[in-house]
């Protein structure tokens, strides 16, 4: 029951995710260099944050078209959990595993700050340990995190309960001030229609231990571990 953490050239949150999964959650995890394109035997995948391919062309665009992503798609099609964090989220939208696109922040600057998120759906393998409507604190660090989808897609996502996290203020209200990047409808994280692929711009691995100031993000990995150990 091992989780693959995919490393592309330019990934830089891979070790943090490995630490949280192995040392904090106690789940078996292994770093997988993107040239190893066989993921059979893994029970889940995390695509960590960073700047794969230096964000050339568009953030995530080139990594999304590497052969290992075909293996990720196969795993996703088998129903196994796939989590993309930050650049991982960008890779998942670029690969077509998730809807929409992540574009330049409304104020076109790299933003590294703590954000409040509201958990909109607990019906996913990554959020089952949260309470619906719970407000949590998880930091962001990105320049291309402005979620965009056309109106029809947004309406469908709303209807299908695919929005998992929204940026809110400390009281849980969706406001423009609480939206750090201009994302439509304050969207911070979404799942696929099959619900087993989650992309989120905030970094749960940076909020998984008390020493980091918040351990709200840990529940993402605990939920994932529950799902994997329970379903295997």
């Amino acid at each position, binding site marked *: 029951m091992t989780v693959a953490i995919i490393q592309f050239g330019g990934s830089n949150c891979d070790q943090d995710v490995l630490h949280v999964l192995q040392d904090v959650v106690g789940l078996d995890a292994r770093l997988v260099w993107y040239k190893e394109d066989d993921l059979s035997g893994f029970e889940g995948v995390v695509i960590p944050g960073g700047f794969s391919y230096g964000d050339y062309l568009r953030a995530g*665009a080139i990594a999304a*078209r590497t052969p290992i992503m075909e293996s990720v798609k196969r795993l996703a099609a088998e129903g196994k959990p796939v989590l993309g964090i930050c650049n991982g989220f960008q890779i998942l939208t670029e690969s077509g595993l998730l809807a929409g*696109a992540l*574009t330049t922040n409304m104020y076109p600057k790299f933003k590294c700050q703590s954000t409040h998120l509201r958990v909109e759906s607990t019906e996913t393998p990554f959020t089952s340990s949260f309470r619906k409507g719970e407000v949590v604190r998880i930091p962001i660090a990105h320049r291309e995190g*402005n979620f965009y989808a*056309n109106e029809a897609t947004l309406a469908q996502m709303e209807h299908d309960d695919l929005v998992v996290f929204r940026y809110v203020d400390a009281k849980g209200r969706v406001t423009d001030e609480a939206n750090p990047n201009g994302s439509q409808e304050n969207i911070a994280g979404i799942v696929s229609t099959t619900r087993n692929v989650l992309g989120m711009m905030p970094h749960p691995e940076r909020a998984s231990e008390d020493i980091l100031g918040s351990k709200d993000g840990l529940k993402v990995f605990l939920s994932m571990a529950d799902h994997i150990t329970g379903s295997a």
Partner: protein
Amino acid sequence: MKYEADVIIELKSGMLDPEGTTIKRALEHLGYFPESVKTSKKYTIALESNSMHEARENVEQMCEKLIANPIIHNYTITLREI
């Protein structure tokens, strides 16, 4: 035959263009007041092909598969023989 394509990638109309907006604001500080400023990216692609038609189809596929993101971008291709 050799061809060269200029591919221009633009954001679809109605999409936010934060860089364009920032540049517009900077121009206003300098005393210029353009109606709008939009950013785009240009890629120049040289390729070998049997015909203009084949070259265009080839570059269109490149745009669809990688160079543009059809969710947010429009693209235009200008092709010439070199």
